[in-house]
C-alpha cells in the first residue's frame, strides 16, 4: 500500500511561489499526471515528493509515513528523470543494478532482477554497453529499467518522454502505459504535453501558478473543465471561448451571441437567470459544434476564414463577432474560405464560464449540494 498524500504544500524560491498550498492525494496504484505549462510548479511538487527539494510548509505522506523531511533514499520511491540521468561511467547492467546494489541485494537475486527489468524494456542485449554507445531512445529505456528494477511502491516520472522525437514518443507512451499498468505501482507523472496526460493518466491534475486547478479523470477534465484555463490548455485545438450576453426571454434564460440565442440545458437556467444582463463566456469544443451548408432555424450563420484539411477532419477557423473559433468537421464537409456556413451549438456541450474569475458556472442544484 502506498498512497501519496500531499497536504498544504508550499514552496517558494525567493519571491516566487512555485507551489502554493497544494493538497493532492494519489491513491494506491493510481497513475496521476501533473499537467501544466512550464513554471506552473509541477516539477517542484514532484521533487518535494521525491525529497530532492523540501517544502517550506505542509506535509508529504507516503503510505502512512510522514516523509516530508526524509532524504530521497528513505522514502521508498523510484524516479525517471527528464534528462534520463543514467550514469555514463557505468555499463547498462550496473546502471539498472545501482539501486539494488545500494540495498545490498545478494548477487544472484540482483542479476535476476536486472535481467527481468531489462527484458521488460527490451534492452536485455545491451547490458554490456556503456550509455554513450546507445541511442536516446535506448537510454530512456535504461532509465525506466533502473527505476522499475528497485520495485519501489512509488514511481515518480519527470517528463520522461520529452527528450524523444515525436514518433518514438508515441511508441514509448503506449509501452509505458502498458508497463505501468502491469506493475501496479503508484505513479506521479509530470508533463506539459496534454495529449500525453490524456492518454496515460487515471487522473490529471492541471496546474497553473503553483495551484492545482482541477484534478479529475481525463474525460472529465476534457469535457467539463472547471476553469477556463483548463479548457484552453487541454485539447487540440483547445476549447473555444465566445462572449455571450444573458437575457431573460419568456421567463427563461437565453445567452445571446449577437442576435442568436443559445439555449442552456434546463439545469443551468436558474444559475444563468441570476446573471440577467451580464456577459458570460461560452465554452465549446471544436468537435462539439455541428456545421451545416444550409440555413437552419437553430443554427448561427458565420463566415469561414480558413479551412485546414487534416485528414481525419477538416478544421475551420471562423469569426464570430470579435471572437475567433475553431470548428472541426467531417472531412467530407465541403466548404471554402470566405463562404458562409451555419453552425449548431448542442445545449449539453456548452460550458458556461464566469468572465472575471474564469471559473465554470455550476447548476444551482450542484452548488446547493456541494455548499
Amino acid at each position, binding site marked *: 500500500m502506498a498512497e501519496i498524500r500531499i497536504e498544504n504544500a508550499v514552496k517558494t524560491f525567493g519571491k516566487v511561489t512555485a507551489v502554493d498550498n497544494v493538497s493532492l492525494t494519489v491513491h494506491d496504484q493510481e497513475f496521476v499526471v501533473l499537467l501544466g505549462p512550464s513554471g506552473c510548479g509541477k516539477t517542484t511538487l514532484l521533487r518535494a515528493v521525491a525529497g530532492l527539494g523540501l517544502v517550506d510548509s505542509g506535509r508529504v505522506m507516503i503510505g502512512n509515513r510522514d516523509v516530508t523531511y526524509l532524504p530521497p533514499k528513505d522514502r521508498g520511491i523510484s524516479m525517471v*528523470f527528464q534528462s534520463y540521468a543514467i550514469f555514463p561511467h557505468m555499463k547498462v547492467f550496473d546502471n539498472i543494478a545501482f539501486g539494488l546494489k545500494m540495498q545490498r541485494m545478494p548477487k544472484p537475486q540482483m542479476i535476476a532482477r536486472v535481467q527481468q527489468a531489462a527484458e521488460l524494456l527490451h534492452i536485455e542485449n545491451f547490458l554490456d554497453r556503456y550509455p554513450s554507445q546507445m541511442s536516446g531512445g535506448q537510454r530512456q529505456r535504461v532509465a525506466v529499467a533502473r527505476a522499475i528494477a528497485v520495485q519501489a511502491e512509488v514511481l515518480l516520472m519527470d517528463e520522461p518522454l520529452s527528450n524523444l522525437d515525436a514518433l518514438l514518443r508515441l511508441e514509448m507512451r503506449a509501452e509505458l502505459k502498458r508497463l505501468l499498468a502491469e506493475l501496479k505501482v503508484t505513479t506521479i507523472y509530470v508533463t506539459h504535453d496534454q495529449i500525453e496526460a490524456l492518454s496515460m493518466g487515471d487522473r490529471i491534475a492541471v496546474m497553473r501558478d503553483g495551484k492545482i486547478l482541477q484534478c479529475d479523470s481525463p474525460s472529465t477534465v476534457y469535457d467539463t473543465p472547471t476553469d477556463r484555463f483548463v479548457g484552453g490548455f487541454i485539447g487540440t485545438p483547445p476549447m473555444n471561448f465566445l462572449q455571450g450576453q444573458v437575457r431573460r426571454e419568456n421567463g427563461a434564460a437565453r445567452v445571446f451571441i449577437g442576435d442568436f440565442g443559445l439555449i442552456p440545458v434546463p439545469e443551468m437556467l436558474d444559475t444563468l437567470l441570476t446573471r440577467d444582463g451580464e456577459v458570460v463566456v461560452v465554452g465549446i469544443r471544436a468537435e462539439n459544434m455541428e456545421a451545416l451548408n444550409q440555413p437552419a432555424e437553430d443554427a448561427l450563420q458565420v463566415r469561414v476564414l480558413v479551412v485546414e484539411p487534416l485528414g481525419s477532419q477538416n478544421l475551420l477557423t471562423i469569426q464570430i463577432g470579435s471572437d475567433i473559433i475553431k470548428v472541426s468537421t467531417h472531412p467530407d464537409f465541403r466548404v471554402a474560405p470566405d463562404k458562409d456556413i451555419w453552425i449548431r451549438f448542442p445545449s449539453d456541450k456548452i460550458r458556461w464560464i464566469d468572465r472575471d474569475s474564469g471559473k465554470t458556472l455550476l447548476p444551482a442544484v450542484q452548488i446547493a449540494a456541494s455548499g
Partner: protein
Amino acid sequence: MSAGTVTSTRRGLDAAQRRAIRARKLRRVSVYGLAILISLWILLPIWLIGTMAFSTRADVRSYPKHVAPVPFSTETMEFFLDTEGILTATQNSIVVAVFTLTLSTAIAAPTGYAISRYLFAGRDAFRLGILAVRAFPIVILAVPLAEQFRDWNMFDKVYSLALMHTALTLPTTILVIASVFASVPVELEEAAKVFGCGPVAAFRRVVLPLALPGIAAAAIFTFVMSWNEVFAAILLTLDNRTLPARILYTLDKSGDPFKFAGGFFMLVPSLIFIFFVRRYLFNMWGQITK
C-alpha cells in the same frame, strides 16, 4: 564537361553574389593567415630552443643558427645537467610542485564543488574574490612575505615556497575544478540519491568518478604553474633554489648552450602535461568539447 558546367553556373551568379563569395573567401584566408602567424610566433622559439638543445655546443655558438638539430648531439644537454646545482634545483622544483599540487587540489576540490553546486550567500563575490588574488602583483605579495617568513624562520625553505605557490595557483585551480564539477549534471547526483545514496555516497560513487579526470587535469596544471613560477621562487629562496630560479639567477653569466638547454629542460614537462590536459583547460573557458 564538368568544368564547363562550373563556369556556366559561375557566370549565372550576379555581381552581388560574386562579391559575397569573394568577401567570404577573403575572410577565411585572413583568419587562417592570422592563426598561422600566431602559431608561428609561439612555435618558432620552441623549435629553435629544441634544435639548439640537441646541437653541439660549437653549433649553438655559431651563426647562422641551424634549422634542425643536425648533427644531433646530447652534448649541450649533458653539459647543462652536469652544471653544479641543477639536479638539486630540479629536485627542489619537483618537491615544491608536488607539495603545491597536493595542497592546492585538497583546498580547491571542495571549494570548486561548493561554487559549482550551491547557491550560497556571497557566492558571486567569493568567485570574484578568488580572481582578485591573481590581480595582486607578486612583488607586492612576495617582499613582505619574505620578511614575514624570515621572522618565522621559514625563509629559504622549500615548503614555504610551496605555500606561496599554493596561494598563487589556487584561483586557477579552483575555477578549473569548479567547471569540472559543473560539467557533471546535478541530475546524476540526484538519481544516485533517489536510488539509495546519501550525499557522501552519491559524491563518491557518481560525481567523483566522473570528475576525477578533470581534477587530475587541474592538478597537473597546478604542477606546471608551480614548475614555471620564478619570481616568488627568487624572492623566497636563497640556497634552496628551484630550477627556474636557479637558471634565471645565473642566466647572464652563462653561455648560449646553457640557456638553450635550460630552456628546453624547463619547457618539456610543461608542454607534455598541458598537451594531456588541454581539453579540461579549454572547458574552463566555456568551450565544451564533448
